[in-house]
C-alpha cells in the first residue's frame, strides 16, 4: 500500500500569488494514496527539505510529490532530500506549478485548478513509480581536444598540467590555428607569434599531450566517460619521425601553384610545404592535389633532395580508434564568404581585402614581408578605408550576413588602423563604423588612442558602394554626423568581415550529439551557469566554436573547459542514469525492431531459457546494456508487444498521468 506525501511550495509569492497553495494541498488530501499534504514557503530551503524528511519518517511515506518549480531546477535537490530520509530518490515526482502554471496565469481562479490537475498527474505517476538504483560506469582517463588553435592548445595544456593524458586532433598540418596568422594582438600590440609559439612548443613537449595533426575525427561512439573515437590520420606522404624540417624539399619543389592557406591565399606555396616557420610539428606535408609525382607519377624531386629519407609517396591514411573520458570541441572560426556583398567590390579588386588578409599583409612573415603595399601593383597606398560590420548585425530577412555582432572587429580594426598610422604616417586612414564596441579591459582606451594619438579618422556612417576607377577604389559612404556623403578615392579597402564557425563543426556536432544554435555555434548546457559545457554530458566547449570571442576570453574559456574535463577525469566511476530501457523477457518476441531503432547500440539479442506460465522455453530475447542506454525510449514504441519499457517513464506511469490530467474534465 503506497503512502504518498504531497508538498506544495509557495516559492515566496512566485507560486502563491496566482495559485492557492493551501487549496492545492487540500485537494491532494482526498487523492487516492495520499496520506499527507502540506504547503510551505520555500520547499527548496534547508528548512523545507527538513520538513520533507520529517514527514517521510513520521508518516512512513513511500512516495513524495513536490509541487514547485520545474524539475529541471530542483528535482535533484528533492531526490537527495528523499534519500536522506531513507526513501528511494526515484520515488519523488515534481509537479511543475511554477513555470507551467503560476508564472503564466494571472489569477488564482485559473492557476489553482491547473495546479491541482498537475499535482494529480504527479501523484498518479508516483503511485506507479518503482525504486530505481543508479548504476556505475568507469571513466577512461584521457581527454580529446578537437582543434589545435589557441583554445585547444590552452585546454590541452591545462588538462595535461593536472596530470591527465590528452590528445589534440588538428585537421591542418600544424597546430596554432587563427592566432598563428595574426600579426599583433590588441590591446597591447605584442607580437602574436611571440606569445603563441611558446605555448605550441610546450604542448608538443608535454609528456601528457599527443598531437594528432593533419587528422580528423571520423566517428564518435559511446557516452560520457566512455567515448570511443575513430580518428583518421591523413597521409602526409612524409615520415614525420624522419623529417627534420630542413625545408630543402620545399625550396626545390617545382609545383608552386598551391594556394597558401596560411597567407589567406594571397600568395602561393609549393606542393610539399611547411605552413609557416614555427609550425608544430615542424615537418613537411605533401598536398596530394598539387604534387606532380602523386598526380602523374613523374618528378620525385623532394625524395631526391631529402637527406633524411622521409618522403614516402606510398603512405596511406591511417585510421586509429581511441577511448576518451571527455571530449572538448575547439573548432574555431573563419571569416564569412563575401560573395553576397558585391557592393564592396571584394571579388573585383585585389586591393579590397578582408581584415585577416590585411593581418597577413602587415606580418613580417606574410606575402609582402610586412611591407604595406597594394596587392594589385605592389605600390605604397596613401589612402586606406576600413569598413566595419561587413556581414555582421544583419537582420535575418536580409538574406545575407549574420545576425550577431562578431565582437572582435572593432578592436582589430583599431589595431590595424593604428599600426598603419604608426609605421606610415603619410597614409590617411578612415574607419567607417556603425558603433564602436569596446567593452574589455583597456579596450576603449586603445580605440581612443587610435583616434586621438594616431590620427585615425572615425567616420560614423556606412559605405554603400566601392568601385574601381582610374586605378583607384572609389568609396562612397555616408558621414552621418557631418550630414554629408563622402566619395573617397582610396588605394585600399579593408573589410571587417563577420566571423562564423568552421564549417566542419556541424558534422562534428552531429557525431557528438551536441546541439548547435541556428548559426552553427555550439550551444552551452546553460547560457549563464554552464557556459563551457555542451548539453551532451562529457562534451565541453572551448573558444570561438561556442561564439565570437577574442584571445583573452578564449584562453579563459579554454581553462574553464579544462577544469571541467579534469573534474570529470578525476572520478573513477560515474553514476549512470537509472532511467533506462528494460525488456520484459516474457513479453519479448525477439523481433529485433528495438535493436534496429536504438541510436546507441545498447540492445543485443541472445537465445535464453524462460519459464512462461510454468513452461520452459528457449527464446530469442532482447537485453539492454544499462551503461550504454541513455533512456530515449525509441525502442519502447518500436516494440509492438510492449515488452520494452522505460524505467522512470514507464507506459503505466505515463498512462496514469494522461488519465489523471483527463480526469480534470
Amino acid at each position: 500500500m503506497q503512502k504518498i506525501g504531497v508538498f506544495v511550495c509557495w516559492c515566496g509569492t512566485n507560486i502563491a500569488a496566482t495559485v492557492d497553495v493551501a487549496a492545492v494541498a487540500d485537494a491532494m488530501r482526498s487523492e487516492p494514496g495520499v496520506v499527507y499534504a502540506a504547503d510551505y514557503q520555500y520547499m527548496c530551503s534547508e528548512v523545507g527539505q527538513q520538513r520533507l524528511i520529517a514527514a517521510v519518517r513520521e508518516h512512513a511515506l513511500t512516495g513524495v510529490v513536490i509541487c514547485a518549480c520545474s524539475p529541471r531546477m530542483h528535482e535533484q535537490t528533492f531526490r537527495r532530500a528523499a534519500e536522506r530520509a531513507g526513501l528511494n530518490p526515484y520515488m519523488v515526482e515534481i509537479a511543475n506549478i511554477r513555470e507551467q502554471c503560476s508564472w503564466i496565469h494571472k489569477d488564482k481562479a485559473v492557476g489553482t485548478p491547473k495546479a491541482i490537475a498537475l499535482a494529480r498527474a504527479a501523484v498518479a505517476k508516483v503511485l506507479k513509480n518503482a525504486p530505481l538504483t543508479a548504476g556505475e560506469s568507469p571513466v577512461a582517463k584521457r581527454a580529446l581536444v578537437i582543434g589545435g588553435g589557441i583554445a585547444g592548445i590552452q585546454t590541452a595544456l591545462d588538462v595535461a598540467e593536472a596530470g591527465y593524458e590528452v590528445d589534440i586532433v588538428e585537421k591542418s598540418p600544424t597546430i596554432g590555428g587563427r592566432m598563428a596568422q595574426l600579426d599583433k594582438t590588441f590591446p597591447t600590440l605584442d607580437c602574436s607569434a611571440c606569445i603563441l609559439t611558446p605555448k605550441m612548443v610546450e604542448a608538443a613537449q608535454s609528456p601528457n599531450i599527443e598531437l594528432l595533426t593533419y587528422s580528423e575525427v571520423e566517428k564518435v561512439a559511446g557516452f560520457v566517460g566512455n567515448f570511443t573515437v575513430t580518428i583518421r590520420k591523413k597521409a602526409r606522404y612524409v615520415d614525420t619521425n624522419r623529417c627534420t624540417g630542413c625545408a630543402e624539399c620545399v625550396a626545390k619543389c617545382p609545383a608552386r601553384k598551391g594556394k597558401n592557406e596560411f597567407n589567406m591565399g594571397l600568395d602561393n606555396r609549393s606542393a610539399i610545404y611547411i605552413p609557416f616557420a614555427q609550425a608544430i610539428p615542424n615537418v613537411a606535408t605533401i598536398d596530394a592535389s598539387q604534387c606532380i609525382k602523386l598526380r602523374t607519377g613523374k618528378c620525385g624531386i623532394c625524395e631526391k633532395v631529402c637527406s633524411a629519407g622521409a618522403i614516402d609517396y606510398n603512405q596511406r591514411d591511417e585510421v586509429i580508434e581511441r577511448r576518451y573520458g571527455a571530449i572538448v570541441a575547439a573548432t574555431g572560426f573563419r571569416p564569412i564568404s563575401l560573395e553576397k556583398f558585391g557592393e564592396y567590390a571584394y571579388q573585383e579588386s585585389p586591393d579590397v581585402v578582408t581584415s585577416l588578409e590585411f593581418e597577413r599583409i602587415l606580418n613580417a612573415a606574410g606575402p609582402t614581408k610586412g611591407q604595406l603595399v597594394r596587392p594589385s601593383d605592389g605600390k605604397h597606398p596613401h589612402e586606406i578605408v576600413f569598413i566595419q560590420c561587413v556581414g555582421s548585425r544583419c537582420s535575418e530577412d536580409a538574406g545575407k550576413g549574420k545576425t550577431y555582432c562578431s565582437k572582435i572587429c572593432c578592436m582589430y580594426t583599431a589595431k590595424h588602423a593604428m599600426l598603419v598610422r604608426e609605421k606610415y604616417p603619410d597614409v590617411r586612414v578612415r574607419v567607417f563604423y556603425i558603433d564602436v564596441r569596446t567593452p574589455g579591459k583597456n579596450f576603449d582606451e586603445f580605440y581612443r588612442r587610435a583616434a586621438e594619438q594616431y590620427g585615425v579618422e572615425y567616420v560614423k556612417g556606412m559605405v554603400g558602394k566601392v568601385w574601381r576607377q582610374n586605378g583607384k577604389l572609389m568609396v562612397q559612404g555616408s558621414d552621418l554626423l557631418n550630414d554629408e556623403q563622402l566619395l573617397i578615392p582610396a588605394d585600399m579597402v579593408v573589410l571587417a568581415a563577420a566571423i562564423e564557425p568552421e564549417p566542419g563543426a556541424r558534422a562534428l556536432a552531429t557525431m557528438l550529439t551536441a546541439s548547435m544554435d541556428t548559426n552553427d555555434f555550439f550551444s552551452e548546457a546553460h547560457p549563464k551557469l554552464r557556459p563551457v559545457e555542451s548539453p551532451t554530458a562529457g562534451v565541453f566547449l572551448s573558444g570561438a566554436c561556442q561564439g565570437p570571442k577574442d584571445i583573452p576570453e578564449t584562453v579563459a574559456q579554454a581553462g574553464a573547459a579544462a577544469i571541467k574535463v579534469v573534474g570529470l577525469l578525476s572520478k573513477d566511476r560515474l553514476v549512470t542514469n537509472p532511467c533506462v530501457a528494460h525488456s520484459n523477457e516474457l513479453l519479448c518476441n525477439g523481433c529485433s525492431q528495438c535493436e534496429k531503432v536504438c541510436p546507441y547500440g545498447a540492445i543485443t539479442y541472445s537465445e535464453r531459457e524462460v519459464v512462461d506460465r510454468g513452461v520452459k522455453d528457449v527464446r530469442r530475447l532482447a537485453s539492454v546494456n544499462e551503461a550504454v542506454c541513455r533512456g530515449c525510449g525509441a525502442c519502447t514504441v518500436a516494440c509492438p508487444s510492449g515488452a520494452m519499457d522505460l524505467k522512470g517513464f514507464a507506459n503505466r506511469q505515463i498512462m496514469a498521468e494522461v488519465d489523471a490530467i483527463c480526469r480534470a474534465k
Partner: protein
Amino acid sequence: MQTVAERVIARAKELFFSGEVRRVLGWERGEFQHERIPALYETAEQLEKLVYDEYCGPNLSKELIALSKLEGRTLAILKPCDARSLNLLLREYRVDREKVYILGAGCTGMRGRDGLLLKCETCRGKDFPVFDEAIDDEECRKVPDGDRFADVCRIEQMSGDERFLFFRSELSKCIRCNACRNICPACSCNQCVFDNPDSGVSSKASADPFEDSQFHIVRAFHVAGRCTDCGECSRACPQGIPLHLLNRKIIKDIGELYGGYEAGGRSPLIDYRASDGEA
C-alpha cells in the same frame, strides 16, 4: 490450376513418405462447399484428406511459429502471398527456417462463398520471396491488374464526416472476437498489449465504445511497416468489417512518403531521413 494442385498434393505426400518432413501443414474440407480449414497431417491416413484447390484461401504461415518449435521439419504449402507473410516471420526470427520445408503452390486466385476473395482481386504478385521448391504454371503466374488502393482512394475522397460515419458504422460491428489478431501473420506477439494488464490498455470487455476503435487503430499501427497486405484480417472477420482498409491506408502513405517497403526488410517506421516531411 488443376494439374498444379495435383502436383502439389503428390509432392507433399512424396516428401512425407520419404521422411524428408515429419508433418504436413495444409488444408482440409470444411462443413460448407467453399470452406477449407487449416489442417496438420502427421500420418499417412490423415494425409489422404489433404486438399489444395481454389478455396484454399486461409494463410497458413502463422501456424509455423508453433510448428517450427516441434521436433523435425514441417512441410508447409504456401501460396505466394502466404510466403510473403512467412518471409516476415522468418526475418523477425519468429520461425526457424531450418524447421520448415516450404512447398510453394501456384495460385490463380482463391474463392470464398461470395466468389473471388477480396485479397485476390488485387493480388500483389505470384513470386515466392522464400521457398524450398515451388510448383506453378503459366496460368498461375498471371497477375490480375486490380488497383489495391482504389478503395482507400475512394474513402480519401469523402469528407471527414463521411469518413467518420463510414468507419463508425463499420467498427461498431466489432465484437472483439480477436479473429483479425489471431489470423494476422504480423500480429505474432507472445502476449498482446491488449491482454497485458501492465500496458494500461488491457480490457477483456470494452469499458467504453472507444476501446474497440482504439484496438483497431493500435493494431494497424503495430503492424505498420510490417503488414504483408495478405488481407486475412478482413477475410477472417465474422462481422465483415473491412479492416484491411486501415492497413492499406498506411501502406499507401508509407509508399508515398517514404518509398514503400517489403515486409521483412527494415520497416520504414524504424528508419528515417533527415529530409522527411513534417507530420
